């Protein structure tokens, strides 16, 4: 009897972390675009970077419940770090430079994480917003380093791994970005399915009880905030590297707001929200700007309001709903061949 329950528990926990058919299809499709959509690589690169940036926000918002309106601070630090490393030929190889850019952003994340430990959502919104404003003005002020309002120009990217040149059609850049996105996604997936990730969800759900089961709540929040900042920094670094340019806009409020918007369109707390949101956002932007040219943000705004009002508790719940329906179809066909027992 006890043995059966152990089997059931093990099966439940294993299923929690298993790759589903949806996920496999998602990534196969993503990598297939390398061959099938060569004319779209520039746009897809940018979309993947948006997705990664929104994913970094999901790590803190969707898992630890930390809301931020200033995540561009880390995106921007990563972008300028990668840009400066390449421009001054400090670290020439892009992959290594990108890791360093991510670490720089993570360092800033660690330092500022202590400001978001306590307080309400409003406090956190204001603190994160404040930090990003400070970063923006610092970049503006130190124009001789950052290029100020003109942006950081004159970046020449060395070949990737010393071999693959960044071409003007963005083929190399897209493969490079997609591989980074995939690797970081897999890493994030491990993290959120680990005991550490579970403890984040617990803290988000109930900090009081979390402490009452022995979780050092503050340190867990510091850890995920730092990781999230590192992810954002890598996203920013990828933008600077693939465009050989960085401007003040990487640190702007609009950048932070876009990330939040994308994440909420895609849904929080299941990692794919940022990626799907970026795709939808991109498609909408293309479609709506064809339709109404200058007023496409009107429709984005309307959509946002609709999603939040309808979704309410489970933002992006409509994606969850579709997923459940698909999962049910799969399960039904699986049950037809092998009867499953237990819940």
């Amino acid at each position, binding site marked *: *009897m*006890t043995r059966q*329950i*152990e089997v*059931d*528990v*093990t099966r*439940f*926990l*294993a299923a*929690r*972390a298993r790759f589903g058919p949806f996920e496999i299809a998602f990534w196969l499709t993503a990598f297939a675009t390398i061959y099938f959509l060569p004319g779209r690589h520039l746009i897809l690169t940018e979309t993947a970077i948006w997705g990664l940036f929104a994913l970094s926000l999901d790590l803190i918002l969707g898992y630890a419940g930390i809301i931020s309106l200033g995540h561009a601070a880390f995106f921007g630090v990563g972008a300028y770090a990668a840009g400066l490393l390449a421009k001054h030929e400090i670290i020439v190889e892009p992959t290594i430079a990108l890791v360093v850019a991510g670490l720089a952003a993570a360092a800033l994340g660690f330092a500022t994480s202590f400001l978001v430990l306590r307080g309400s959502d409003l406090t956190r919104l204001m603190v994160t917003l404040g930090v990003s404003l400070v970063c923006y003005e610092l970049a503006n002020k130190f124009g001789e380093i950052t290029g100020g309002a003109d942006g950081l120009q004159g970046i020449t990217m060395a070949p990737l791994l010393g071999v693959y040149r960044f071409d003007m059609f963005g083929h190399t850049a897209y493969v490079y970005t997609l591989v980074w996105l995939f690797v970081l996604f897999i890493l994030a997936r*491990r*993290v959120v*399915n*680990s*005991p*550490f*990730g*579970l*403890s984040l*969800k*617990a803290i988000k*759900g*109930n900090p*009081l*009880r979390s*402490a*009452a*089961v*022995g*979780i*050092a*709540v503050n340190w*867990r929040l510091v*850890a995920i905030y730092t990781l999230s900042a590192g992810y954002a920094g890598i996203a920013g670094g990828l933008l600077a590297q693939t465009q050989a340019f960085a401007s003040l806009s990487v640190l702007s409020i609009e950048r932070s707001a876009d990330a939040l918007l994308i994440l909420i369109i895609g849904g929080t707390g299941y990692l794919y929200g940022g990626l799907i949101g970026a795709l939808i956002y991109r498609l909408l932007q293309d479609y709506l700007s064809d339709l109404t040219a200058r007023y496409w943000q009107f429709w984005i705004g309307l959509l946002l309001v609709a999603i939040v009002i309808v979704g309410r508790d489970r933002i992006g719940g409509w994606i969850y709903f579709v997923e459940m329906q698909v999962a049910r179809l799969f399960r039904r066909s699986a049950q037809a061949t092998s009867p499953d027992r237990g*819940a």
Partner: protein
Amino acid sequence: MAPAPDSPVLETRNLDKRFGGIVAANAISISIQRGARRALIGPNGAGKTTLVNLLTGVLRSSGGEILLDGEPITNLEPHERVRLGIARTFQINQLFADLTPIETLGLAISERHGSGRDWWRVVGSRPGITAEVGELLERFRLTDVMAERTATLPYGKQRLLEIAVAFACRPRVLLLDEPAAGVPGAERHEILGTIASLPADVTVLLIEHDMDIVFSFADRISVLVNGELFVEGPPDEVARDPRVKAVYLGEELHA
């Protein structure tokens, strides 16, 4: 340093708590022996929950000392006290609404093992965790709802999970704050049954209003009134004490 077998596992010495001018706990000295079944009773506002919050570190004391197996824990953070072996349940459910009972218990056990910071392995992949989750689910009669979101569980099951999470911390001292509060008849028996069958080596401090529960469970009762320890003794003695009866005059004493 191994504690002597008959030394108290949990002890407070002159514990004070003041909120501004209000005295919520006044020089409380309680000593609880290992394996004891102690009940803490008192009228509303007597300071019972304040005392639990002081013991668990949710509140900082204004004065006095708390000792666990003779070691002072007065200045430790709540999570540090949990790791040393003080776990509690809450009067009002404090659960993880979006997690299942399996995840909730797996989490508590992982934290106890010190693997809560492990960010690489999958939850439950460490040996022994799933077996223990299974045992807890059975002990607390949660097997039928183990894979459901906690928010969707019937209230009685949530109360059981509340106790199960605390028990999963494998405490030396378990503080139960009105474990059966608000639970209707049949489910109430289920909860009381699980409490009665807690292992003898776990020391239990029960805060309860229901005198039937108190007198069937406790081997010793402490009565708290106005933030002070008023009377303490075995159940029959406390039940006969005229001062206790006087305090409870106007409240119902079902004994």
